[in-house]
């Protein structure tokens, strides 16, 4: 372990001496003679650095990047026969033979854990000296720089930085509202009345009370209702996460607002306002309940949910499933808890075995330059897009090919999980009108809440967290489902529940969370 660290330090030392101090602009090509760097690139769309994971072919984007930078990325991906990213990363680390660049999905945790052990090169000084574009981006977003740091205060990877704000939204069958002569619900009380009306007044007009007023695809989405009682269900873009409350990290499921919110959800479930098969319906819930004209309201992704208006236009007369603003909570707050996270645990890092760290960081920097970012987002200019009035615009054959634009981009080598800033203009061009209207509606108010971007534990903190938290979370979810299903009453059980959490080490977990949080975000 020590030797890796020393090797890395030696590389840094020598290169820092020999490399000329660069000006703010980048010079292309980065190297005069072609330089080959090996890369591990394992991500959901492709296991390997080539179109669809076929490493015998070269991405059109990579060809242009080679031409411009003279740096040639050569595939050396571990675990190409599995789509399980975790497994691939473990295989890679277990071999100990790391390629020059390690990239892909969910690399933050391993990179920040093994970086300080010497497996990856710290990037702080390299970025300062050789990567003006990366530096400029993070100077504007210091909170994100803090969020990607490892516990030793160093940064070990350049993240994929998604653009765009909204992810999921509240959707309602506007045609059902019209049929029953109701307004779109604006408060939690009105929401309740609408759901009761959906249940009792047969809005689908088939003469049976078979409507499911509120349904979700992932059962966890039902917890978004908690925000209507000023509680939270998560602090990030995945479920059940910690969040920051008054400058302190806490878990949403240990707050009193949660107790009251969950009591109401249980009440709604009992009254039949929420899908009775909530926990087993699974991912086909939306297809089935919308397709059978049974579902009235949900919380789901803007783009894909809007798509049902086209898919079901012929099947269900007047089908109109549209986004509406989150209802105001009991205290009059209106929030949309779910949003796109501004920084992903995906991206790329430089491994200890890389002999060209300066060239590599310059190469990383290329993808943050205007030219590189356009290439990473839209593909090759003149092939998939043109610059029209200073805006990158997709060619008609890309927009109207019948295949989703993102799938086309993945094959071009654009929108790959490099470390690069995503550009929302890429997605907006192929977002449907109904979703665009919804996004504009959500943009009309200040709905979003701060995301908790996570902390990097040191070894002792990680140990405490690993020892206690998996069991605590299991217990939280067990009680949560039991209360929703009506076995036990959350208000009666609350004191015992909190006592049990503390007994299981909840306070210790909070302590390490907060010490890590302070270290990470205090400067």
């Amino acid at each position, binding site marked *: *372990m020590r030797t890796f660290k020393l090797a890395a330090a030696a590389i840094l030392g020598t290169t820092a001496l020999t490399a000329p101090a660069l000006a703010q602009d980048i010079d292309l090509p980065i190297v005069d003679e072609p330089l080959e760097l090996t890369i591990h690139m394992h991500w959901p769309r492709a296991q390997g650095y080539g179109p669809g994971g076929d490493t015998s072919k070269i991405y059109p984007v990579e060809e242009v990047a080679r031409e411009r930078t003279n740096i040639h990325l050569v595939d050396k991906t571990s675990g190409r026969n599995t789509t399980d990213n*975790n497994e691939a990363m473990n295989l890679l680390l*277990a071999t100990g033979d790391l390629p020059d660049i390690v990239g892909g999905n969910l690399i933050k*945790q391993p990179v920040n854990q093994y970086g300080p*052990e010497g497996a990856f090169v710290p990037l702080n000084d390299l970025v300062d000296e050789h990567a003006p574009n990366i530096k400029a981006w993070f100077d504007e977003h210091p909170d994100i720089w803090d969020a990607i740091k490892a516990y030793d205060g160093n940064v070990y990877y350049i993240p994929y930085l998604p653009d765009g704000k909204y992810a999921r939204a509240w959707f309602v069958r506007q045609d059902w509202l019209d049929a029953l002569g109701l307004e779109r619900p604006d408060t939690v009380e009105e929401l309740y009345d609408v759901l009761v009306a959906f249940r009792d007044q047969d809005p689908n007009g088939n003469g049976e009370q078979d409507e499911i007023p509120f349904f979700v695809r992932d059962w966890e989405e039902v917890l978004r209702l908690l925000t209507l009682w000023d509680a939270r269900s998560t602090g990030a873009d995945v479920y059940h996460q910690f969040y920051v409350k008054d400058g302190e990290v806490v878990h949403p499921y240990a707050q009193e607002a949660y107790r009251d919110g969950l009591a109401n959800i249980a009440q709604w479930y009992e009254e039949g306002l929420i899908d009775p098969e909530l926990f*087993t319906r699974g991912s086909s819930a939306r297809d089935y309940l919308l397709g059978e004209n049974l579902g009235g309201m949900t919380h789901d992704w803007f783009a894909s949910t809007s798509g049902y208006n086209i898919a079901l236009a012929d099947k269900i007369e007047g089908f109109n499933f549209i986004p509406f603003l989150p209802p105001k909570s009991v205290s009059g707050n209106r929030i949309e808890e779910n949003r796109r996270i501004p920084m992903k645990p995906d991206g790329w890092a430089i491994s200890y075995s890389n002999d060209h760290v300066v060239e590599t960081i310059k190469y990383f920097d290329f993808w943050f330059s205007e030219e590189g970012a356009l290439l990473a987002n839209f593909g090759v200019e003149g092939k998939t897009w043109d610059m029209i009035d200073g805006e990158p615009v997709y060619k008609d054959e890309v927009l109207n090919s019948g295949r989703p634009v993102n799938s086309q981009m993945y094959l071009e080598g654009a929108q790959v999980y490099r470390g690069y800033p995503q550009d929302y203009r890429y997605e907006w061009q192929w977002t449907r009108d109904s979703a665009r209207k919804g996004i504009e509606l959500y943009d009309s108010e200040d709905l979003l809440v701060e995301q908790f971007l996570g902390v990097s534990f040191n070894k002792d903190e990680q140990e405490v967290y690993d020892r206690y938290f*998996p069991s605590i979370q299991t217990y939280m979810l067990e009680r*949560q489902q039991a209360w929703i*299903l009506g*076995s036990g009453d959350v208000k009666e059980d609350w004191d015992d529940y909190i006592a049990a959490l503390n007994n299981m080490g909840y306070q210790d977990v909070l302590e390490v969370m907060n010490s890590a949080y302070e270290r990470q975000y205090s400067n």
Partner: protein
Amino acid sequence: MSSDPDFISSAGPKTEELVFDAKEAQRRRRASRMQRVGDHLKREWQLYAMLIPTILWLVIFLYKPMYGLQIAFKDYSIFRGVAASPWIGFEHFETLFNNDQFLRALRNTLIMSAYGLLFGFPVPIFLALMFNEILNQKFKKTAQTIVYLPHFISSVIIAGIVITAFSPSAGIVNTILGWFGVDAVYFLTKPEWFRPIFIGTGIWQEAGFQSIVYLAAIAGVSPTLYESAVVDGASRWQMMWKITIPSILPTIIIMLIIRIGNILEISFEMIILLYQPATYQTADVVNTFIYRQGLQGGQYDFAAAAGLFNAVVAFILVMTANTISKRYSRTSLW
């Protein structure tokens, strides 16, 4: 004759000769034993060649991974590797036994296995006996195919079928209950229903296929026994009790011992597909606990400790079962 003193004295020199001959023969035999083994191998090499894949499989997939078991006693870092990670003794085991959820999982594993054994083990025997009594060949073949079929369906699909069958709105179970005026039950979120559903599904899926072993054993029973029984005027019922069952009893006991050895290896992929936090109370077993803590939570060393403990318990169970069986029925695995 041996009491005849004359015989002894007259045999005196002969005995020496005999001893010499015997020793000589033994020496020759010893030398030729190697040769005989060689001859045997030469003659039967095909049989031994057929053993090789199994031995390779054992070594590669069962013995070699044992090297990795040491991480149960180590503070394992995947980048440092198995050998370079520091030893920490029994710390993971201490954590394990202070974890209520592990103890609950262990209890659930034992309960579910015991129920599985109690209800699941006799079914394939009944099935085999019943198939044996069917005289119409066409009907027999069809019935067998139907009961084997679920074995060949993937667990994911079986779980889908189960979830649908027990759905409160569209499921066949609740529909039938509805005819009798029973309110729909959301079975898969009720802890008290999880075990019956899981064990029932297991029986439905595997009983038919497992009955093949017993059918084979029944086919091996000598027909002369039945013929003489018929001559003696035995009924079919008597023949089943007096001939068939005693004849296949060794098979039954061997299957039972094997089954006890695997008692802690519940088909946990099925549990993962069917359980919910709401049913963890009765559904969470050691393997699902390991899956959540170790693979989802990334605690490989801790999960290895749980897995090792599981194996130790299984080992004790199979040893005990084998010893008991050896003592009382003279049938045993080794």
